[in-house]
């Protein structure tokens, strides 16, 4: 039982960062509804290639929802309409025949567009390099079971550690804030006993790096949580703000 649909796509095309960029319209036919969204783009790209056009550039790698490489704004929503789902895991059965689908890159000062749907998320790596780690050199670790960890804390830390660094939170936020991303890493490490020693420096350095990278502030819109494919909770932001204040007063 093959189910196929046809769609009108309006896709953001931008050759290089410096270009202005504009929407192009493409008609796609015979889209099998069991395709993933990225497979639909593959099909369009194959067609564009054979017609002598340049295919649409988009980032992707695992296509399993875990590497955080893919992402685009689809009809105004980061990663498209399905909750808790990355773009690569979105399937065409979520669309109706003759729908118009608008596809744009993440838009944020901290994520300059590189080409078409591809953006530069290097700022996220720089935030991690500012303190998103525990400074334990290889070889100096104690026996793993020496330090039992309260189940509840371990679970909370894990919920935060599930962040895949895709940037949907930034793209969804009206202020292009990176607070959900940054706070998730801080919660992951600061909730664990291993992360305590550096907890204060960590929160201060990461928050300051985040500001320096040009990300906006949080005004409690909660759009980030709604867009997050891993359902990272905004409670991490509150925890980060608390820890930041405490650290600033005590450092």
């Amino acid at each position: 039982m093959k189910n196929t649909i046809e769609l009108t796509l309006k896709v953001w095309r931008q050759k290089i960062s410096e270009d202005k960029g504009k929407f192009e319209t493409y008609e796609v036919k015979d889209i099998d509804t069991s395709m993933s969204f990225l497979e639909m783009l593959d099909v369009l790209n194959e067609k564009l290639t054979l017609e002598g056009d340049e295919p649409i550039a988009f980032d992707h790698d695992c296509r399993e929802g875990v590497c955080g490489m893919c992402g685009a704004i689809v009809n105004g929503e980061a990663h498209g309409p399905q909750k808790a789902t990355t773009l690569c895991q979105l399937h065409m059965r979520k669309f109706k025949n003759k729908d118009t689908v608008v596809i744009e890159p993440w838009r944020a000062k901290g994520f300059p567009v590189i080409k078409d749907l591809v953006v530069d998320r290097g700022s996220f790596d720089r935030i991690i390099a500012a303190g998103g780690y525990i400074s334990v050199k290889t070889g100096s670790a104690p026996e793993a079971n020496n330090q039992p960890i309260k189940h509840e804390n371990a679970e909370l830390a894990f919920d935060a550690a599930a962040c895949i660094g895709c940037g949907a939170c930034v793209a969804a936020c009206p202020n292009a804030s990176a607070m959900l991303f940054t706070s998730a890493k801080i919660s992951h490490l600061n909730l664990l006993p291993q992360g305590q020693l550096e907890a204060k420096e960590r929160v201060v350095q990461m928050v300051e790096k985040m500001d320096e990278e040009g990300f906006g502030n949080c005004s409690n819109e909660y759009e980030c949580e709604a867009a997050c494919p891993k359902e990272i909770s905004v409670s991490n932001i509150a925890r980060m703000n608390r820890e930041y204040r405490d650290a600033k007063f005590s450092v």
Partner: protein
Amino acid sequence: MLDSKIPEGPMKDKWTNHKSKIKLVNPANKRKYHVIVVGTGLAGSAAAATLSELGYNVKVFCIQDSPRRAHSIAAQGGINAAKNYPNDGDSIHRLFYDTVKGGDYRSREANVHRLAEVSNNIIDQCVAQGVPFAREYAGYLDNRSFGGAQVSRTFYARGQTGQQLLLGAYSALMKEVGKGAIDLHTRCEVLDIVVVKGVARGIVVRNLLTGEVTSHSADAVILATGGYSNAFYLSTNAKACNVTASWRAHKRGALLANPCYTQIHPTCIPVHGDYQSKLTLMSESLRNDGRVWVPKQAKDDRSPKDIPENERDYYLERKYPSFGNLVPRDLASRNAKYVCDDGFGVGATGEAVYLDFADAINRLGKDVIKARYGNLFEMYDRITNSSPYQDPMMIYPALHYTMGGLWVDYNLMSNLPGLFVLGEANFSDHGANRLGASALMQGLADGYFIIPYTIGDYLAQNPSGQIDANLPEFKESEQKIKDKTQKILKIEGKKTVDDFHRELGKLLWNNCGMSRNEKGLKEALEKIPEIRDEFSKNVNVPGSDADLNQALERAGRVSDFLEFGETLIYDALHRKESCGGHFREESQTEEGEALRDDDNFAYVAAWQYQGVGKIPNLIKEPLTFEEVPLSQRSYK
């Protein structure tokens, strides 16, 4: 003759003795040594972070926009270690023994023993980094049994073990980047290994955003570039996984070992259309409660619910009464292929079998099943639009992991001095078949605990030469790369890169997949050069080489798969025995099980490049088994 440099002495003392004898680099001198690390998966990130901590000058390269996105991120199940926390009889010796046996006696005992020895340090290191492994209510680390192991030695982090381990290694790497100690280059693809006077001295890299081609020299080069499953086009690997760095090192003289040892995972979501871009793995743990079956009647197109119990063939339970649905990966895969080849397969393509949870749900209740597999069922539902609570899953085997890779000695150095190879990219520890949860272990063992010692030994004996990246060897290589790019862009043919990749993939899958025979392999040897030839005349790569051009990236990788594929087939053809993931139909027992030929094939097959399309030269490294006596597997 290949020298594997296995240290003297009893098995359990080899690594300790070796470590106490190797040469050390004076701490004040470490800064003078430059090391290049290619790849930021578990193996590369762990190596880069550790070498930088030791004081070496480290440059790191990866394809993705961030080191955190390497393919290792996708591993689900877990990582093994011989901690014996559950007190169920595990030990370094048992982990070593199981791994050698699981590899079907085609790995090097000394390497495997060392792997088992350092396994416990890995867990300590990861926990200290903040990797959130599963814990019991009392707060201690939890373990589970994985892939049919008789002890519970697998550490796991929900279904995201690879992600959490990689984030740990990535954070260690970024700590060094933050200090300014590591020079990190993302969105860069290494396209050549430069060899000067027989020694690996650097790499040539293409910046994927600007197209710029640059040379980088060093005292040693580490490749941690992952496996080559994507030669088969459809696999469970991430889309960027490739053989390029390994293949180009091979063309510069590095030997390629056992390329025909590939692992096929039995529980993946079946192919559903020609547009399909990858296959998704469903965790092996599903076979603990799911029952595999097909209809007894060929081409039966009734819905599974309408097929009564006595018209179903639970073929694994029937053929392997003692192991049933839990037979090893290769057996489960091959048997699925047999039933589908005979026309009993289900689903739209007839290439799928059922994995049914109805009995388990009846016996244990939906809640228990949900607690065990809820997230997997959800993932399955998202992809296929069918709920495993209501209808049986459909599964089919898919290419998953490659045991073969660049040949390395005990020090993880290839036959080219100065070129080290870690993780899935080398051939070293898994023989002809890898056990579940041991790739993550090997990648981190190589990166955290082995290379820091063995590379020091090499560097101490080879004082820094401060090689100039303007040497003719670098410039010639840069020019060759630029010429090749221009050539590809000018073909302007009528087929896309993916058309060729799919064609090669189908051929390898059909003729060198789950089971292989002489006729099929010879046919593949005829067809691959034809595809390669057509590629060079008829591929269409639009765009330019001066900005991001993803079709051009893929074209380079596919052109390497098209050359490499032939060597893979030569290896499969020459190995006339069955072992592990390599099943030669000509070599089976009366019951149809894989039959090893230890008298003639207990060796590592290391291939030496002789030119594109030329038969490579076979060099053998004999394998001896002192600790684990050779025996034939049986799962009846």
